[in-house]
């Protein structure tokens, strides 16, 4: 390394931390802490959600209990939807769609979360062990990251962000509808209303804390000083962005809870406590 400028050109059979020339340590890693806990918990949490949401999305039942509509089924875009008075029944797909209408709309939040910079980290680490944890060798022989198909499509995150905005808008509308009672009279609220309020706040916070959003509102600018309003927006989204992971998890849990709540009401397992 006399001058530090010779190009690195080593190609040998062994790769990674056991490559020739590197310090010969047999162990894949020497971490002594419980490094596996975090990826394991992440994987378990994500799996639980996937299992629950798959069941609910394909169930095609018990997603409406006036005045609440499950966020998994909103907006409802096929004719086979339960009629929801004043609710998000927009039958743009007509009658030919025979499967669960949830599948039509869940594509968008799913895509948004699947390409989200936080979730990418979470599932690359948790499911794909690439890497399982910092300085713990990954099990793969080769790695090309997000340089080619399909993972290069992660760059489409911002389109899913654009799509996530109207979805969040509709869920906001649904939340407004929860200020009715089971007879569609306005000016009432129940425990579900509260749950929906918390959920929509988290959904918005998660959506707006998105890295793409931060880039679009201001990050792409070169001179903040020439765009004071966008600079301020960038600062705000930046503050939210620092909590993106927290918001990703809490909004994931809240959306599942809202759905579960509607399910419990719809199946009559539980009665919505009314406040007024």
């Amino acid at each position, binding site marked *: *390394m*006399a001058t530090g400028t010779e190009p690195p050109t080593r190609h040998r059979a062994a790769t990674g931390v056991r490559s020739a020339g590197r310090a010969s340590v047999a162990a894949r890693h020497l971490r002594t802490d419980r490094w596996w806990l975090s990826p394991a918990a992440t994987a378990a949490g994500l799996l639980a959600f996937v299992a629950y949401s798959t069941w609910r999305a394909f169930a095609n039942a018990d997603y409406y209990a006036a005045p609440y509509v499950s966020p998994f089924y909103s907006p409802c875009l096929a004719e086979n939807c339960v009629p929801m008075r004043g609710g998000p029944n927009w039958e743009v797909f007509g009658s030919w769609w025979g499967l669960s209408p949830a599948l039509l709309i869940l594509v968008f939040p799913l895509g948004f979360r699947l390409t989200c910079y936080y979730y990418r980290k979470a599932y690359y680490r948790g499911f794909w062990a690439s890497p399982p944890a910092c300085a713990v060798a990954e099990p793969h022989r080769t790695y090309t990251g997000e340089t080619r198909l399909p993972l290069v499509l992660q760059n489409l995150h911002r389109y899913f962000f654009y799509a996530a905005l109207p979805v969040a808008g509709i869920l906001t509308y649904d939340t407004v509808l929860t200020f009715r009672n089971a007879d569609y009279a306005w000016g009432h609220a129940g425990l579900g209303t509260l749950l929906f309020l918390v959920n929509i706040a988290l959904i918005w916070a998660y959506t707006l804390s998105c890295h793409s959003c931060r880039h679009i509102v201001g990050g792409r600018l070169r001179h903040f000083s020439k765009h004071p309003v966008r600079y301020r927006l960038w600062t705000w989204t930046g503050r939210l962005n620092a909590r993106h992971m927290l918001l990703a998890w809490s909004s994931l849990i809240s959306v599942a809870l809202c759905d579960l709540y509607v399910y419990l009401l719809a199946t009559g397992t539980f009665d919505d406590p009314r406040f007024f």
Partner: protein
Amino acid sequence: MTHVEREQWDVVVVGAGGAGLRAAIEARRAGARTAVICKSLFGKAHTVMAEGGIAASMANVHPQDDWKTHFRDTMRGGKFLNQWRMAELHAQEAPERVWELETWGALFDRTPDGRISQRNFGGHEYPRLAHVGDRTGLELLRTLQQKTVGLQQEDHRETGDHEGRLKVFQEFTVTRVLKDADGKVAGVFCYERETGRFLVLEAPAVVLATGGIGKSFKVTSNSWEYTGDGHALALLAGAPLVNMEFVQFHPTGMVWPPSVKGILVTESVRGDGGVLRNSDGRRFMFDYVPDVFKDKYAETEEEGDRWYEDPDHNRRPPELLPRDEVARAINSEVKAGRGSPHGGVFLDVSTRMPADAIRRRLPSMYHQFKELADVDITAEAMEVGPTCHYVMGGVAVDSETAATVGVPGLFAAGEVAGGMHGSNRLGGNSLSDLLVFGRRAGLHAARYAMSGAGGGAVTARVEAADVEAAAAEALAPFAGPDGHAPENPYTLHQELQQTMNDLVGIIRREGEMAEALDRIAALRARARRISVEGHRQFNPGWHLALDLRNMLLVGECVARAALERTESRGGHTREDYPGMDRAWRPVNLLCRTSDGGGIALERTLTKPIRSDLLALFEREELAKYLAEEELGSEEPGSEELGS
């Protein structure tokens, strides 16, 4: 005969800190093929530790600032011992050097109108320090490093070779400057730390930019590289050192935990409002304002506090006195039993600024105390005490060209060069010094190297015998002690550090310094019996054994010069001669190697200060420093004054 590889260059720069890189950039731009040698990795030089800022009278914050004011502050800080032409050039050229950094990509903190922000600092009349939070040195070094890379990219585009015109030899140590038969510089002898292999770089011009000597002291803010290599290389090549008795003890180093004792707490803590208190809670600095500064500093806490907001109508708080004054004051408080639990005093910002302002303005300090001492400086006071920080003395150089005295082809810039700062350096003047004189050294080294017959390179032949001798010297520690008990380099180093700290430290006494000289002589004898284990590949014991030669030489210079100067001035405080003596003002002490391998001193007189520069000061002020005959007539235009 050992085979030693040779390479040919026009200019070799020893050291890749601020001065070395600035010199290399300038030499390369002047057309010289330039090699830079550094002991560490490229980009790790001690310059990164500089925190406060770069002093330059750009007048971005205070419109009245100009080079004359900066010159005045520098001379006052140095107690008029400065090589005044250097101080003048420095004050004049510093702004250009800072602006130039911006064109190379540096990002300083800004004023509201978008110019480079400038902050207050001890001894500077106006806010003058260009800064980036409290990591200015890192910004400066990284900028120069990236400019170096930029030039290499340019060369690559033109010639297909990144390193043909400018090359960095990282992790190499120079052990000798080699001369030809006529006494001109011919190259350097060095070893590669990683492999232990020897290398000779032949070049007609060598720029020393190796920094300071702090590692000769026990409590120091300096890194391991600061072993006085350039000082020793110059001495051994026959160039004298000047002002070596002046060593700056920074007033605020960490005192706890022991492993970080000496690490710097930046002066910006005080510039931004931090105050010093003793164990009684008293702001003791008000008791320590010396007469020469009485009318420039606040007398009450209220006035001092008002100054931060309204510097035009109030005088600055005495916490911002020059470093030597503050260091001595802290020393006195601790000795009087009013120190903090771990032997320092309290430096408090927590009660003076809101927590988030502290974190924003002093991020690395916040980080440093949190990580290293587990102290939250937004909630509690820091404990600080003096630490060896900087050597004002160094290789005697020509003010204009940075050429050393008596060795053609040898140049020196930065901390390794003496003269610029006189008896005491102001904070912020170091980084500007690196840039101003680094550039000058590089430029003049390149000009000298290319001033040979017909505009070609100067020819100078490295003598084979000198290479042999240098190789033998470098290998000596492996030879074993020759029948005596072997000595451990780490032990000798610790003993030297203890000796320098205890006997030639911040307060000096004649008997102690004489004892220090005895101990250094004994250490030098023992150093000849050093034996190191292992082989030449990255062997720290061997490296230290070779560095010890330099530290012992430099330590002796400091002790001898300090013993000789029977007065107190700036970074040199004699308990037995507590006053400043005007008769000593024009006296410079030069150190040279004597025939016996030790150090011999020579007294010289400085050139009288030019009259137009003298005219920048009030006569009453000058009278405090200069002898009657130096003041001369009051008539303007008299060119030559004094002896």
